[in-house]
């Protein structure tokens, strides 16, 4: 048990030293842990998240949609109201799944469960932990999105074959929100501060041209809305599911990639500062 028979000396792996001892290439063990924990404790909470966007779609898309009729999408095409809001709900589902895991769950793990302290006492580095936890949040967001996408297909709200690309798109959305969510959470110290996240999320959901076109707003406000990550996500997904695709959607992709990169960088730095001082 002592390792008397395993006295091989430590061999410094110079190839990895460049990474500044931040990454052991073992993020999958963090994902494995998350899967075990979800399986045994809170799978019901996780599953309940699937239904939220479906209820929105039924009440607003079908119910309210009956009154609204058709709306004009970005490229001037006339589409049913339900097909207009469904991609927005899809993007929001991905966002919510990712944000829930990467904010409240991560907050609890940092401040109370001291989970990361335990992880970082092993050969894992902060990048392993960040990638692992963000992957979990991403998987959750993706799970919600795929379930909702199937509902959209069944109800006939995917108007184009481009909708297939909607799946990688929502993965990117989930990744961007999970990274930034975890980065921001690492600065949070109290429940009161965590409430700020809810305070930001709800208005963003309602105002990001989710339920009506951007053109409703006066031009100066349009600029503000366009800067929001959810607007970027909704536009990207909506272009794909409604089939009004142009090269312009690459800007949304770029925005989300930059957001994910920023989130990863901040998260790694913060984990290092918090647990490897």
């Amino acid at each position, binding site marked *: 048990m*002592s390792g008397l028979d395993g006295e*091989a000396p*430590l*061999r410094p792996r110079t190839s990895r030293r460049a990474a500044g*001892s931040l990454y052991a290439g073992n993020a999958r063990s*963090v994902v494995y842990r998350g899967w075990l*924990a979800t399986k*045994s404790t809170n799978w019901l909470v996780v599953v309940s998240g699937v239904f939220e966007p479906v209820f929105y779609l039924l009440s607003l898309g079908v119910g309210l949609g009956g009154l609204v009729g058709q709306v004009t999408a970005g490229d001037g095409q006339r589409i049913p109201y339900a097909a207009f809001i469904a991609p927005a709900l899809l993007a929001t589902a991905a966002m919510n799944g990712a944000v829930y895991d990467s904010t409240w769950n991560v907050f609890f793990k940092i401040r109370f*469960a001291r989970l990361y302290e335990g992880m970082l006492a092993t050969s894992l580095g902060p990048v392993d932990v960040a990638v692992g936890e963000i992957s979990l949040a991403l998987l959750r967001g993706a799970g919600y999105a795929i379930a909702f996408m199937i509902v959209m297909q069944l109800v006939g709200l995917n108007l184009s074959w481009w909708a297939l690309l909607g799946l990688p798109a929502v993965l990117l959305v989930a990744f961007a929100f999970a990274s930034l969510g975890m980065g921001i959470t690492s600065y949070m110290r109290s429940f009161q501060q965590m409430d700020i996240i809810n305070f930001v999320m709800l208005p963003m959901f309602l105002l990001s041209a989710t339920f009506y076109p951007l053109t409703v707003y006066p031009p100066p406000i349009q600029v503000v809305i366009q800067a929001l990550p959810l607007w970027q996500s909704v536009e990207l997904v909506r272009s794909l599911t409604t089939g009004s695709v142009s090269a312009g959607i690459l800007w949304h992709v770029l925005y989300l990639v930059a957001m994910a990169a920023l989130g990863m960088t901040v998260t790694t730095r913060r984990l290092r500062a918090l647990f*490897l001082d």
Partner: protein
Amino acid sequence: MSFAWVTLDTVSSPVIVASDLVKRYGEVVAVGGVSFEVAPGESFGLLGPNGAGKSTTMRMIGAVSTRTSGRLEILGLDPDRYGPEIRSQLGVVPQSDNLDEELRVRENLLVYGRYFGMTRAHVSGRADELLAFAQLQDKAKAKVTDLSGGMKRRLTIARGLMNDPRILLLDEPTTGLDPQARHILWDRLFRLKEQGTTLVLTTHYMDEAEQLCDRLVVVDKGAIMAEGSPSSLIRRYSSREVLELRFGADRNAEMADRLRDAGDRVEALPDRVLVYTADGEGELARLTDAGMRPITSLVRRSSLEDVFLRLTGRSLIE
């Protein structure tokens, strides 16, 4: 295994070398220049009161805290540069349990092994071995929150052994446990020591240090006050026996003054007077003959507590 590696790792070379190790948090000096070495297979203790800098030292050895200055080598490597490599060879038992409460008992071991990159088959076998070692076979599927304090500690130690570490770091392993749980734990640690695992532990319990440590340093306010084996420290800084006398709270100081010349040395505490002497019973008889009437008296063997009192003028648990 190549020849070069063998020469690097001769049996006698220390597994931990610290010299002038300093850790500052802003203006606060947590560790103020400590130097020590730990040999392979040795059981080494850091003894001191709360806030002495023990845990900070442990965190630096555990490669999760970077030093402000000084030299530190763990298994021949600098923890600033080779954190993951060093941590892969350490077992860590932190001061307060940080078990994964979302996982069951056995799952805690499985997952922890996976953090070290061990294969599924390997962690499974190892987990069963260690559940037996920690006497927790019956609890394999239990929730961590349902375990007693002693069981949680044993599970934390089992977890720390998953990667078959060359050094096991224990930060106050038995603080907060009842006497029975402590003895079970000491027994387990003693077995590890017999098997040749290098143990580094901090404690503020004298009996623990005397039970487990081959050698220890007494730390106070971030600095080392003394170093040696428990018995040599007692020999050097204390007498063979101690006579404890209680005269009542208001008379202790006055009586200590009258006892000035008794034994080798006299220490007046608020609640009692300690007389350090080679022969406690003899000294007590002499004092009684001289007409002193303590309310209670007790002769005991000298302990590390006395060493600490001598060195710092304070008791260890305050």
